[in-house]
Each structure stands twice: as structure tokens, then as C-alpha cells.
């Protein structure tokens, strides 16, 4: 009898990727492969100043000496880094003045994604930067933001127009040679978003970036840098999708956040890169380095992520709590289905006194997938009166998937308190039957239970995203939500 209920649950979790279309836009690409010339090619394409090229080359040379990390709980065939196109720009070229100038084909892409730029502009008041393959396509609301002194543009534009800020902060949180994938990104990053909130300004709207990999055989290496000056606030959202392709595509992004005294940065991600098909063919390798530093006292950085896509996810949004009384938060829902593998979590490094961090991680595994939480809480010797609370829950659907928890707790200060709790459970037959008995079918019951399970994290998302994220959860795990 067990089998019957389980297979019902399993049936409801089998669903297809809804964002797997390919947009027919002509792309301007670099030749395949990676060497110093490619790095120079990318830099030249973007008209970069000499210092930027040198920074890239330094990272590239370092990358050559590094080895791909193997400690994550994921398995994949070796990546041939010479088989990847490191630069692909949609041909219709930039310097767009308004959203209306965007290639109509591309606009339809965003309509399919459920992000109509026009609509965004009109209704929701969210400023959007759009990055397709490697290049920033459009940034909305620039004008309104610039009146407040907020800079929100592509990183390429920032390199041209705000070189001092870029020079000062880029690589200050994630050094170019921090790890294998960060070094690769530093060498070949093609675009991304840059955001600067001046002293005392609260961004009046959510800032948002949509990433999409479109071209074949391309890797996407975007770079995001957000700097919040003293007393400022910004909420930033990113969303990602990619077409269905048989081969694996590499996405190695770097995100750096800098929060000065009393500043707050809230960074939310809904990641829905193509996860591969039911047999595990294709899908994005999502190897991302995200790190923020609470530089000033009383600053706060909060990461929220809903991860439903990618064949492999390798991602640990982290916070360095340097300022006294600073706060770091990490809220995550990671869903894996079919052959997906996720090794994700966070790192909270407490350096300042009276620093606080909170980790809430919810992993949902279905199919034959593997879902791992890996998190480090480090309390430095001088970080007196620091606090951490971690809660990691796993929910299993079906008996062929795996859930793994690897918390690392390092405490070198005796006035600090670190607490970690974790549970693993499955969707209980009795829960499903209880819902059935109230007239709710199994599929809907599973959706209700999952949304309940993930609620604590979903509540952290800005309204505009919460609905979409909830939909995504449902789509990843079920046919539809009733």
C-alpha cells in the first residue's frame, strides 16, 4: 500500500521545464575556447580600460594554476573549458535608450518568461536590468533612480562611467583568485549589474536583474556588484532561466555586496536555470560565488534564494560580519527533482562584536536527485557576544532521492552562542490521507504541504517575487497547484 501512495506523490512531482524555449536572435560570439587572446578579445569588445584588462589577465593566469574543487557532494563528468564560448552578445547592439528599443524578438522572450518589460515599467515599479547570454540588454528606471543618486547600470557601463567605484570595490569581497570558478569569472566576465546606493538613500523600488542564457555552447559569466553607503537600503532581485539544450552549459557568476555602516542590502534570487531532462541529460552547471561584507557597524545583509533549476548547483551565499552589531541572514529553499544535484548553503563569518546571523535552509528532494546543505558558521576569537541560529530541514518525496546536511561550526569565542537544528522527514502518508479525507486530491495536498514547509523562506521574498517563486515551486514539483 505504501507504494501506491508514494507513486501517486511521485507522479505529481514529475513535470516539465516550462521555460525551455530558444529565442532566435543573432549573436555576436567569441571563438570557442579559452586563452589570453579570448580574455583580450572580451576586454576589447567591451572597450575596457587597460587596468581592467590587466585585472582579468592576472585572474586568468592565476586560474591556470588552480584546480577544480572536488569537495562538494556532486558528481559530473569533467568540464572541458576549451569547449565553451566565453562571449556571446545578441547582435543588435547596446546603447539602448529605452525599453522600446529592444529587439522585438527578445521582448517576446521576456513576455514568455512572464516578465513583460513594459508591464514591469508601468505597474510594478521594479527597475530591471536584463542580461542575455553575456550582455546587459536593458536597464529600466535609470532616470528616476539617478535623481536620488542611485547608480543602477550594467557593469560594463560602470567600468566606463564609474571606474573609481569599480576599482575600489570589485574584488574587494570576492578576490579574483578566491576560488577556481571565481577566478574564471574574473578573467572572462562579460557583463552583469552594478548598483550603488549613496549615503542615506533608501531605494524607492526593488532593483532587479533577469539573466538568461540563450546561445548554444556558451557559458554565462556575469558579475554583480552592489555597494550600499552609510545608512542606505536596497532590495535587489535576480531571476534566471535558460533554454533546453542537450549539452550542459556552465554558469559561473560572482556577486559581491558591500554594506557600510547602518546600510542594509537584501538580495533575493529565484534561480530556474534549465535543470536537464528527466534522464539527466543537459542542464546548467550553476557554480556561483556570492559573498557580502557587512563592513560597517550595524549593517545588515540578507540573502534569500529559491533554487529550483540547474543540473548542478554549487552555491554558498555568504556574509562576512566585520562591523560590530552587524547582521547576516540566509534563507533558502532548494528543490531538486529527477537527476538534479544541489550542494548549497552559506558561510557566516563573525569577526565583529555582537554580530548576529540566522540561517534557515529548506531542502526538498524528489526523483533520484541529491540535495545537500553545506554551511559554515565561524566565530572569530574577538567576535564576543555573537549569536548564530541555524535551522536546516529536509523533505523527501519518494525513496530514490537523498538529503544531506553538512554543517560546520567553528567557535573560538566563549561568549558566543551557536545553535544548529536539523530535521529530515518525508511527506507523510497520513498527511496526504488527512487532506484526501477533506476532499483535497493528492497533487494539491502535496503542494499545500510543500508550501507550508517552505513558508518561512517564501515570506522573506518581496511580494513581486513571492508569487512567482511559489509558482515555480509548484511547477518544479507538480503539474499544477489547485
Amino acid at each position, binding site marked *: 500500500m505504501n507504494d501506491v501512495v508514494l507513486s501517486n506523490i511521485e507522479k505529481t512531482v514529475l513535470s516539465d521545464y516550462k521555460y525551455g524555449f530558444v529565442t532566435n536572435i543573432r549573436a555576436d560570439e567569441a571563438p570557442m575556447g579559452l586563452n589570453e587572446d579570448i580574455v583580450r578579445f572580451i576586454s576589447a569588445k567591451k572597450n575596457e580600460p587597460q587596468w581592467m584588462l590587466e585585472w582579468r589577465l592576472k585572474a586568468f593566469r592565476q586560474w591556470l594554476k588552480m584546480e577544480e574543487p572536488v569537495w562538494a557532494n556532486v558528481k559530473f563528468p569533467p568540464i572541458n573549458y576549451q569547449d565553451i564560448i566565453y562571449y556571446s552578445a545578441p547582435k543588435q547592439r547596446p546603447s539602448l535608450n529605452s525599453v522600446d528599443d529592444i529587439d522585438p524578438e527578445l521582448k517576446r522572450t521576456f513576455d514568455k518568461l512572464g516578465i513583460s518589460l513594459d508591464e514591469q515599467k508601468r505597474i510594478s515599479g521594479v527597475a530591471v536590468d536584463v542580461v542575455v547570454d553575456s550582455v546587459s540588454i536593458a536597464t529600466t528606471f535609470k532616470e528616476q533612480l539617478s535623481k536620488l543618486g542611485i547608480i543602477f547600470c550594467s557593469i560594463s557601463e560602470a567600468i566606463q562611467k564609474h571606474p573609481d567605484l569599480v576599482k575600489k570595490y570589485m574584488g574587494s569581497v570576492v578576490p579574483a583568485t578566491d576560488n577556481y570558478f571565481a577566478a574564471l569569472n574574473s578573467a572572462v566576465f562579460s557583463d552583469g549589474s552594478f548598483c550603488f546606493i549613496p549615503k542615506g538613500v533608501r531605494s524607492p523600488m526593488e532593483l532587479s536583474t533577469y539573466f538568461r542564457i540563450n546561445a548554444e555552447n556558451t557559458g554565462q559569466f556575469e558579475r554583480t556588484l552592489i555597494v550600499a553607503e552609510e545608512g542606505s537600503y536596497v532590495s535587489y532581485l535576480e531571476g534566471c532561466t535558460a533554454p533546453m539544450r542537450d549539452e550542459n552549459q556552465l554558469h559561473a557568476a560572482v556577486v559581491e555586496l558591500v554594506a557600510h555602516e547602518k546600510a542594509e542590502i537584501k538580495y533575493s534570487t529565484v534561480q530556474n536555470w534549465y535543470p536537464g531532462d528527466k534522464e539527466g541529460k543537459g542542464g546548467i552547471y550553476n557554480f556561483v560565488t556570492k559573498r557580502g561584507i557587512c563592513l560597517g557597524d550595524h549593517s545588515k545583509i540578507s540573502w534569500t534564494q529559491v533554487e529550483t533549476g540547474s543540473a548542478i548547483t554549487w552555491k554558498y551565499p555568504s556574509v562576512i560580519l566585520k562591523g560590530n552589531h552587524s547582521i547576516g541572514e540566509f534563507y533558502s529553499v532548494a528543490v531538486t527533482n529527477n537527476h538534479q544535484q544541489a550542494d548549497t548553503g552559506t558561510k557566516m563569518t563573525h569577526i565583529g562584536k555582537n554580530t548576529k546571523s540566522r540561517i534557515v535552509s529548506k531542502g526538498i528532494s524528489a526523483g533520484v536527485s541529491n540535495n545537500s546543505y553545506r554551511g559554515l558558521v565561524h*566565530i572569530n*576569537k574577538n567576535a564576543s557576544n555573537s549569536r548564530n541560529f541555524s535551522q536546516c530541514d529536509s523533505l523527501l518525496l519518494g525513496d*530514490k*532521492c537523498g538529503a544531506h546536511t553538512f*554543517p560546520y*561550526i*567553528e*567557535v573560538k569565542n566563549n561568549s558566543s552562542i*551557536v545553535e544548529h537544528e536539523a530535521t*529530515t522527514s518525508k511527506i507523510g502518508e497520513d498527511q496526504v490521507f488527512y487532506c484526501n479525507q477533506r476532499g483535497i486530491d493528492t497533487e494539491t495536498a502535496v503542494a499545500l504541504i510543500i508550501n507550508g514547509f517552505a513558508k518561512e523562506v517564501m515570506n522573506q521574498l518581496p511580494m513581486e517575487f513571492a508569487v512567482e517563486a511559489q509558482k515555480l515551486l509548484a511547477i518544479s514539483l507538480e503539474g499544477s497547484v489547485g
Partner: protein
Amino acid sequence: MNTLTYFQEQFNQLQRTDAADGLIAIRKTASDAFNKLGIPTTRNEEWKYTRIGGLFNKEYQFDINPAITSKELDDFRLPAHAQANEIVFVNGLFSSTLSTIRSSDLIVLNLEDAAKNEYRDIVTKNLGHSVHYANDGINALNTAFAHGGVFVQVKKGKSLANPIYIYHVSNARSGNSFSQPRGLIHVDENAGVQIVETFVTLGEQESFTNQILEIVVQKDARVEYYKIQNDKSTASQVSTTHIRQVEKSFTHSVVISLDGNIIRNNLNVVFDADHCESHLYGLYCLQNNTHVDNHTVVDNAKPSCFSNELYKGVVGDNATGIFNGKIFVRKDAQKTNAYQSNKNILISETASVNAKPQLEIFADDVKCSHGCTVGSLDEEAQFYLVSRGLSKQSARALLLQAFAMDILENIKPEPIRKYVEQLISERLEIDVL
């Protein structure tokens, strides 16, 4: 002579002199593994927080025949030893002359002898099973030199009235001592036994003990296992206890670590049958520069097993406490109930604790949870006691003692429990004065 070169020569000689016995193949495999894996470094995830490379850079005296009398051991015997079966290892080798076997239901043999006679099957089938849980050279090193070990069989249906005390004596009087004791205990069907293991270093030089004890638990058998580490600050240990419950059975363990230099404990509990149960407790109460790394594995290889694990640490001075607890739930191990908890109190500015409680779950119908806390002594509770007239010191001592009590009350043999309680209260008072 370099320690590693010495190993190679010793190994060749050992294999030549004892070529006929049933251990030769096991040793050869282990030796190859050691040559491949080497001494673990902190790059190995399982050794992230413990460096033992330094222990291999010292000069050791490989004294295989030290003259130690029974009388010399009297100072170190555990309480109620007059009623116990005492098994003594000296410098890693089982000494039948120093050992005393009081129970007729207990068979105690040289491991080599057991590997040749009627116990050959048991030995060859079970010896070295722990290698599946240690992806490192240190386990292999012991196995490569498995000789002079002990084989113990608790007879079917017999519950031993007298516990087994195992002493690992290192003679470090004239030089540093390195020893590798090896033991295999087979607890037969429906038998019951209490085992207490401890470490003793004689002399002022350093000792390093790389020890493996494997316990095989048969149907309906009950095993209590206690390890007490209260040796000198010059004594280091890598101490592996591998408990394999091959049929439905019950085990209970308490590991107490108080003193030493670098201590690494590996405690594995493997459920190789349905409905096994195990309780694992540990207390590390540390001072000075002592470094204690407790690695535990509970492997739910079969369904419907139950495990409950509680490890606690009180870490002071410059000491370091590490807890790495892993719970595996294998694919078919449905209806597993596995709980794990690790609680630590840091009582000095310079102490540190690293904890890594891990769950790896491949079955869906399971109830598993783990929790971990690291903090200082509860100030609110301290204040409560002080407000009732206690001095700050005695309030602290009382609270720490209460903290430790959860573990101590699980030491079932009364003389041993009293002894450990005494050690702990001495420790806590010394600490707070």
C-alpha cells in the same frame, strides 16, 4: 631512523616471520592502502580539524619487549578490578602474563592463534571491517601491522557478571613510544558484556597509540562499551572502536575524554540487521592544550533501527574540542529513527570548539534530527544560583556538573561511574578555583 622507512622494513619482516597465518592477506591489502593514502592531512575532510602529521616526525623507540611487572600497573588499575577480566596490552602487544581472565564464559586468545584455529572464520570475516569507514592511512597502518593483538569471544547465551577491562600501556620511560594495539571481540548470540577501555603511559616521554578495537555483536546480544581517556598530556591516541551489529542487538557506549595531547576517537556503529538499537554518549572535559576530536558514524544499513547520540563538551584553557557526527541512512533503511545532539560549553577565552554534525539520508521514511549548540555557561542560571546565596564559583561548578551529569548517568557499572564522577568533579573544581 625515519618512522615511515621503519614501517616498511618492519612490515616486510613481519610478513616473513609469520607467513602462515590467516592475517597475511589482510595485512598486505592494508599495507598497500597505507602506501597509497599516507598519513592524513587536514586536506582530508575527515581530518580537517586535527593534524597528526607532527606525531610521525618524532623519534620512536620500538620496544616490543619492555619489562613491566604486574605490580607497576597497580597504580593505574580501574576500580573494582579484582572482579574484572583484565586484558593488558604493553606497547601495543597483548600480554597474556599481565592479563587476568576470571570468567569461564570468556575466551581470550592471541589474535594470531585465533586466526589459525576454530575461530579462523570469525577472524577473517570480521577483522578489518572498520576500513570501510576510514578513508585514511592511519587505519590501514594499524591493520598492516596487525599482530600481537587479542581475540575475545563471549560465549553464546552468557551474560558476563565480570566486566572486561582493557588497558593500553605505553612504556615511555626511556624514549618515545609508538604502539598499535589491535583487538577483535565477538559477542555471540544472546550474550551480554561490559567493556571498559583505558590508556596508561608510563614515564615522562611521549606516547602515541594508534589502536583499533572491532566488536561484532550477534543476535540479541547486549554490549556496553566504555572508554576512559585520562592519560598524561604527553599521550596521543588515534583510537578506533568499530561496533558492528550483525543481527538484531543492543549496544550502549560512553566515551569520556579528560586528558592527553592529541586524541582522535573514531566510534563507528554499523547496523547490519533490522531492529538494532544503539545509544552513544560522550563527554569531553578539557583543559591545557588537550585536543580531542570525536568522530562518530552511525550507519543505518538496514531498516527499523534506532540510535540516539548525545555528546557534550566542556572546553577550557587552550583546549580544542571537536565533534564530527555522521548519520547515514542507506537506501533501504526505511523506518530509521536516528537522533543526534552535541552540546558544548566554552569556559575560557582561548578554548575552541569545532562541530560538524552531518546527516546523509537516502531513504524517505525516516525520522532523523540533529542539533548542535556551542555557547558559554548560561548566565541566567548562574545568576539564579548566586541570588540564592551560592558563590559564583560554586554556581559554575554546579552547573557544569549538572551539564556533565546527563552523560555520566549512562555509565552503568557503578564503580566506574563513581570513579569518573570523581574525576570530573575534581576537574571542575580545579578549573573554577
